[in-house]
């Protein structure tokens, strides 16, 4: 087994598929690290993941249990970000809330992105009536305002995280389908696609093995940039009481509860608000950095 050194990764003549792939990933990472904003974004996202995974280590108190005599205390040594109306530590609730945020964001991305990519690729490659029908279907979802559709869905199925995830995923996939279709249209007539057709490949094989891999870059960038919007939509649903239900420490719901005290005990609503802003910014910076690195049009073919 060759030692994984910088030389091994950057070699001009990789000796195996694994080496070629690792080398590419390394080059992408190096390019990303050159962009300071992307580094900041990456660190924020990494912090989110660490907080979520190791929540019990970072929380100072229980996120669910509070002593009423401790209610609405300002930030102090005991309650780092203050306490809410039930005496629960806000910092600990935010840390555990990171789990919920991360879960929602990852599930939505895992459902919406592949679904959108596949529909868009099939639509763009096959064309004709398939394209018209699939895109008509996509347009129906695209034309509905995200939050309202999510609301309607949740109202029909009942509140809760799972339904919130499904609702947001349903409104997110059309954008990826459109991106995938647009890129597929430009790729469809490339000579390398013609070459594979001439080898007798089936349409399914061409789409799966030759078209989809070329779409991943744009979709990854778009998903990362969309994360902020997904977080905000989830927070919006939570704010309206339709997402995660109490006593779960979902950030949007926390802001909603803190509304009544906003003038005197501003920290109850504002701290989760900051959390949302910082995490959204982190994803935006990271997404921007990824786009500069992965977008072939910017000339940086990695």
């Amino acid at each position: 087994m060759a030692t994984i050194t910088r030389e091994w990764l950057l070699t001009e003549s990789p000796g195996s598929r694994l080496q070629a792939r690792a080398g590419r990933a390394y080059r992408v990472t190096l390019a990303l690290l050159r962009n300071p904003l992307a580094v900041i974004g990456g660190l924020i996202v990494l912090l989110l993941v660490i907080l979520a995974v190791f929540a019990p280590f970072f929380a100072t108190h229980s996120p669910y249990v509070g002593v009423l005599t401790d209610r609405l205390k300002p930030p102090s040594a005991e309650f780092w970000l203050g306490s809410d109306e039930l005496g629960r530590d806000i910092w600990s609730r935010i840390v555990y809330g990171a789990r919920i945020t991360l879960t929602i964001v990852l599930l939505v991305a895992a459902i919406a992105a592949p679904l959108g990519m596949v529909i868009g690729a099939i639509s763009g490659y096959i064309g004709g009536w398939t394209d018209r029908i699939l895109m008509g279907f996509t347009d129906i979802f695209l034309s509905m305002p995200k939050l309202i559709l999510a609301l309607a869905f949740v109202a029909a199925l009942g509140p809760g995280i799972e339904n919130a995830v499904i609702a947001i995923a349903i409104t997110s996939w059309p954008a990826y389908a459109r991106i995938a279709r647009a890129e597929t249209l430009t790729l469809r007539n490339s000579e390398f696609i013609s070459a594979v057709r001439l080898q007798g490949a089936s349409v399914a094989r061409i789409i799966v093995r030759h078209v989809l891999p070329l779409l991943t870059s744009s979709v990854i960038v778009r998903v990362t940039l969309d994360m902020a919007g997904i977080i905000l939509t989830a927070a919006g649903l939570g704010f309206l009481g339709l997402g995660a239900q109490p006593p779960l420490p979902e950030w949007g719901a926390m802001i909603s509860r803190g509304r009544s005290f906003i003038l005197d005990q501003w920290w109850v609503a504002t701290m989760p608000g900051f959390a949302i802003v910082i995490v959204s910014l982190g994803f935006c910076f990271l997404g921007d950095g990824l786009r500069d690195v992965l977008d072939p049009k910017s000339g940086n073919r990695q």
Partner: protein
Amino acid sequence: MSAISLRNVQVSYGDTRVVEDLSLDVAQGECFGLVGESGSGKSTVLRAITGLAPDWTGQIELFGQPRGKTIDREFAALCQMVFQDPYGSLHPRQTVDATLSEPLAIHGIGDADRLVPEMMTACGLDPKFRFRLPHQLSGGQRQRVAIARALMLKPKILLLDEPTSALDVSVQAEILNLLKRLRREQNLTYILVTHDLPVVSFLCDRLAVMQQGRIVEIAPVSALKSGNMSHAYSRELVAKSADRVAG
């Protein structure tokens, strides 16, 4: 029986007729040149044979078998194509190994680990390039990969669409030599489309001159070499090729 036979072939792109009433025969083992300027329809003839331009009428036969409008595995094993642009004809995210294994995988042929390096060597590619991506290869190397890919299924016919036009002069000679050698070794039949007459002189046995979708002359390459083409347009092309500045 000729390897390739075209009778009264007409090809259209949408409403435009690009190739008119074209007939020609190519014998097995022959290299047939198809020359003309851009817009003459020469590349379109190849696309019609392969099925990439399916809007054609007339008869096309390969080794006596009539050609349809679709691309199936049988056709793929018989006839392959090498494209002009070495930068566009390779999948940008697939290594040389993946590109060369793909035709084998599609046809259920195993033993890629032996066949791929074998073909690379046969086409003058160092096997150490096996896991490189296209952007890590030079233009000449990419074109060798394209040729290797076309030969993986051991076809009898190779359609070459301006295979060296996008290459540097010094690299062109290597690729032309390679094509000549491969044809001899594997008794391949070529149709070579090009605007470059000296290339025809080097590689081909016979040639056809196309103008605006029609063949104006078919001649043996000796006529080209001795400057004895019959049709006025052919003579014009030869003259302009030889001396581009004087009147």
